[in-house]
């Protein structure tokens, strides 16, 4: 299980880096919102990998809360884009 944790951690770190690159580059606000959403879901997957490899359910609440915050934040910024325009 340690090998799996290492491989998954490496892949998730690279995924987070690529999301951050899109977050910095993204020409419009919608691209940045998508990148931030993907980054938060990568964090959710990382916590899930930790939960599955150790078998401890300590951080499942954090998993739920981060998924909830990602949804509410994305929806809020979508309303903001509609009202203010996309810059």
């Amino acid at each position, binding site marked *: 299980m340690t090998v799996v944790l290492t491989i998954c951690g490496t892949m998730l770190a690279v995924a987070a880096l690529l999301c951050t690159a899109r977050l910095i580059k993204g020409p*419009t606000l919608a691209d940045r919102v998508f990148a931030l959403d993907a980054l938060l879901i990568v964090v959710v997957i990382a916590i899930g990998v930790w939960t599955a490899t150790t078998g401890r359910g300590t951080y499942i609440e954090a998993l739920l809360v981060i998924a909830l915050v990602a949804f509410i934040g994305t929806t809020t910024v979508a309303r903001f*884009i509609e009202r203010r325009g996309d810059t």
Partner: protein
Amino acid sequence: MTTIGTILSAGLLLLASLLALLAAVGLLRFNTVMARTHPVTKAITLGVVAVCVAGALRVEDRTDALRLLLVAVFQIVTAPIAAHMVARAAHRVGSGGTRDLPIDELRESGR
């Protein structure tokens, strides 16, 4: 039984991480907002479902397994809504390559 669960859970974890990586690559390499909707919605949702099933196979407590499946269901329900709202907002303000689409039924319908 335990070894089968462990092997299955390890495979699901590798699948989930690979899907997250592919979604990030797609997010970086696709060129319009509408194209970037796809990796953010589909690949990442499948990754969350895979990691939640893997955790539910491995975790000791049964209520923890139920809560992990709740996270998966929540992600399946909310990810399309969030991506649709952002894409619709981008379409309404006409940014990110949504102005020169070959077929634009949303604009023709006048909403």
